[in-house]
């Protein structure tokens, strides 16, 4: 019925020191879908995201078991090129972090790291990425300005564009709209709706309403475990698990 999953997490457990953050988690992410992950604080949502691009490797006490398959290949295999992985799975953080350079330099940094130096290619990718986050018209004359000069909402879309220039296959976003005003939030959500045509999108959000309006499927995490996952409309109206229902109606969180 469904296509092969783009990302297949199988029995994944993640811990930091002795503390278990994710417990025996299995979850699929399909091509061309927006998967929202909701749950109270410390449910492991961010840990899950960072396990998908192996950013957790940076933490000295991180250990894991289980598999994370990208197109069928375990990303934790010894011969996996982590640098390449991070170009295929692009991450946007909760707080926009523009590097202290110009808008243009921020956008081409990832490409230069990948060895792409041809000016025409760079310009082309920059324009395409900015257009897909609806930022092109706003900044096309400001490309040489410091990225810090942009507004919060613009900076976050810039961070999204910065990842998009690398043409990743999977986009992972960690509460990308926290701290953004409603208009900027709307623009980001609109961009994601368009982007799903070409990417798999995993979106962590603390805002259940955002999950309800801008995702295709939703997964509910609680204390490191996947409680339930299903089509968004169904999960929000007729959740299967009692705990999901309790969270959604605000009993805890």
């Amino acid at each position, binding site marked *: 019925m469904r296509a092969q999953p783009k990302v297949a997490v199988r029995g994944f457990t993640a811990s930091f020191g002795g503390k278990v953050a994710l417990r025996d988690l299995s979850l699929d992410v399909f091509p061309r879908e927006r998967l929202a992950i909701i749950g109270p604080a410390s449910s492991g949502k961010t840990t899950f995201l960072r396990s998908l*691009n192996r*950013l957790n490797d*940076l933490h*000295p006490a991180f250990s894991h078991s289980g598999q994370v398959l990208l197109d069928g290949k375990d990303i934790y295999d010894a011969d996996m090129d982590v*640098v*390449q992985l*991070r*170009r295929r799975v*692009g*991450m946007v*953080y909760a*707080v926009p*972090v523009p*590097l*202290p350079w110009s808008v243009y330099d921020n956008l081409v*940094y*990832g490409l230069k*790291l*990948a060895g792409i130096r041809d000016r025409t290619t760079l310009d082309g990718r920059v324009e395409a990425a900015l257009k897909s986050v609806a930022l092109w018209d706003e900044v096309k004359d400001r490309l040489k300005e410091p990225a810090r000069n942009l507004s919060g909402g613009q900076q976050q879309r810039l*961070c999204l564009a*910065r*990842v998009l220039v*690398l043409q990743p296959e999977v986009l992972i976003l960690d509460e990308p709209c926290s701290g953004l005003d409603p208009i900027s939030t709307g623009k980001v959500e609109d961009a994601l709706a368009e982007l799903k045509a070409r990417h798999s999108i995993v979106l962590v959000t603390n805002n259940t309403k955002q999950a309800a309006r801008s995702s295709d499927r939703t997964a509910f995490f609680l204390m490191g475990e996947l409680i339930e996952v299903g089509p968004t409309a169904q999960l929000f109206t007729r959740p299967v698990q009692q705990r999901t229902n309790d969270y959604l109606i605000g009993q805890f969180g």
Partner: protein
Amino acid sequence: MTRPSPVALQRVVVVALWSLATMTIGVLLFIIVYILAHGLPHVSWGFLTQSPEYMGRKGGIFPMVVGTVMVAGLAVLVAAPIGVATAIYLTEYTREGRMTAMIRFGADCLAGIPSIVFGLFGFVFFAITLHLGLSVISGALTLALMVLPTVVRTSEEALRAVPSAYREVSYGLGSTRWQMVTHVVLHSALPGISTGVVLSLGRCVSETAVVMLTAGSALRLPHSLFDSSRTLALHFYMLSREGISMPNAYATASVLIIAILALNMLAYWLMRRFVAKVR
């Protein structure tokens, strides 16, 4: 006697404190003005480019200028890359823990060791044991060791001041650690690191005790790293202490002060750029 009101008390305190501040700044200015007033009239292009005669009673300070540039320059040329590389290793390539805390404590201690003790070491180790004699290179290597802890510490602080979020972003966009360090971290930390290097250069230029014991006090122009050489600071010390020539002493001191002030202003300007970049 009734207690003075807080406002009245404050007025007294403010006057007292401002007097302290004025006295302080006054003294510092007095020193500079006094030296420059007595010395600048004797500083001429000839003074800077001629050699001394009669042990410095007449003539110029050219060999001392060259000697200072060689000794201090070489010292920083050695200490800066090693110090910055060490700082990079400590901040970016190791975990924060017992080892790094110990190294940091050790660096702080060594940064506080009196320069004369470094002079002692340099004399016995470089000049005698390694048979380098009283020479530019003995002086430079000793000075390098003296400023190394400071370079490491200031570089380390500059590197740490770069927000860790930048590092994550760089990794997230597919960089190796070294790419992250050079493109993102060093780029932001460079002004701060340069400040430390320039200040260390200033220390090397002012330093007298160390060069006295390791570079010697030859009046001739040094032709190689193994020649003995006198620095400006040492020349000034000897001229004044032995009463050889007061006008020349003042003139030498003027040149020295102007050089140091220029270096410090450069360091200050670099620091401001650093703050602008990293905030």
